[in-house]
């Protein structure tokens, strides 16, 4: 679905001519603009199993991504809107029910009050949501040098690099909706040594993909071999970040597969219906010049 990136200039131009006016009219030139002022970082577009009209999640990849989340990200980042039970979703990581119970039992959640009015801790159940690593935002900031590690439930939909004209027109035509995971993957793989003319603020790291300037408070979280994979996938930073970005896309959009499958049925139905109506209309109007 990333045709626009690979096609030669002349094809892009002719496409632009075809779609430009209509597209610009429809969009009213509006487009998500989240990049901070100044030069926006270039975010490379990756291939994802869930892109395009027939896209679906790869359960193996989501299971690996969950492992990366669990062993690395979860130390600082919450996942507050995701219920543990959803890990069993067939259009998601597709863990077995038994595996989900085991995963749940590894977490402790606060419950209560009990009969004496006290809150107590208990083993999590699949129906619980993932517990947060910090009790509140202040605690999270205090533990992280003043920076707040954002909740990750929606991060794959809450971050997008700015797409200017005419890219945003192509994005509508090619159904590009993977700006979030593209950005997450880029962010996790673009930690670099700062150039000589840049002085990092204390506790900051240099990252060329970060949307709000090049200095980020999150230390590079991944390194080769950090998380053990049992399915033979390469244990590299690139693979980890790819997997965890896919997992976070699922966490943000768990109904993606249902949406695309329903969409295909609805679109086919509408196409046939439009055809029928068109011929009915022609029949009805056949004796009227208009």
């Amino acid at each position: 679905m990333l045709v626009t990136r690979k096609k030669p200039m002349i094809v892009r131009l002719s496409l632009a001519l075809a779609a430009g006016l209509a597209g610009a009219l429809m969009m009213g030139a509006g487009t998500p603009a989240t990049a901070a002022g100044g030069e926006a970082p270039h975010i490379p577009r990756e291939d994802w199993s869930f892109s395009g009209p027939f896209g679906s999640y790869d359960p193996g990849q989501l299971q690996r991504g969950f492992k990366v989340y669990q062993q690395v990200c979860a130390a600082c980042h919450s996942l507050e809107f995701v219920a543990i039970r959803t890990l069993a979703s067939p259009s998601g990581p597709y863990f077995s029910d038994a595996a989900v119970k085991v995963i749940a039992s590894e977490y402790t959640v606060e419950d209560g009050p009990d009969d004496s009015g006290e809150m107590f801790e208990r083993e999590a159940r699949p129906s619980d949501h993932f517990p947060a690593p910090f009790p509140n935002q202040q605690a999270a900031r205090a533990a992280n040098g003043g920076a707040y590690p954002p909740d990750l439930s929606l991060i794959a939909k809450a971050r997008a690099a700015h797409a200017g004209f005419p890219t945003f027109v192509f994005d509508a035509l090619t159904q590009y909706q993977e700006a979030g995971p593209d950005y997450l993957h880029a962010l996790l793989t673009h930690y670099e040594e700062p150039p000589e003319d840049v002085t990092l603020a204390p506790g900051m790291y240099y990252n060329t993909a970060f949307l709000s300037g090049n200095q980020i408070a999150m230390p590079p979280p991944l390194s080769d071999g950090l998380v053990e994979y049992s399915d033979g996938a390469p244990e590299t930073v690139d693979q980890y970040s790819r997997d965890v970005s896919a997992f976070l896309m699922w966490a943000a959009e768990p109904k993606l597969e249902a949406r695309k499958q329903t969409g295909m049925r609805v679109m086919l139905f509408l196409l046939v219906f439009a055809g029928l109506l068109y011929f009915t209309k022609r029949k009805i109007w056949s004796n009227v010049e208009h």
Partner: protein
Amino acid sequence: MASMDSSEPTRRDFMYLATGAFGAVGVAAVAWPFIDQMNPDAAALALATTEVDVSSMAPGQSITVSWRGKPVFIRYRTEKEITEAKDVPLGDLKDPIARNENLPSDAPATDANRAAEGKEPWLVMVGICTHLGCVPIGEAGEYDGWFCPCHGSSYDTAGRIRKGPAPENLLVPTYAFTADTVIRIG
């Protein structure tokens, strides 16, 4: 051109019928999401268990806990109550079925089938009158069990309907003792 529709009436009629039928199917299909959204959602379906610690209860005590938003009566019965319940002949019962979700749906409403398995003094029931959904009052009514203030249904010490408009015995939900004094409902 102008005469086409009158010369081929069957083809035209088929066209109209097919289009109309297609539209009707579409409308019907669209209606379903709008209806189904009112059904219990995924979170409600998943939130189906409640654990209760009953270690502090003494014979003759009752507690009411909340399960799926409904009251559940847990009663630690006295010897007298158990005897009373056991002495009732099945033929005297208004509803001869146990209404116990842990048992087959045709199990008879004996006291053993109403009480916890292997723990005769314990009675766990959804505290909702089977008539129209009020919460009955405990240790009340003609049969020393439960009495519904709304329309006067009386239940005995095994939660079986004995008198009044309610049609069925109080429902025994799915539950189990996970430890000697811990009950998991649902």
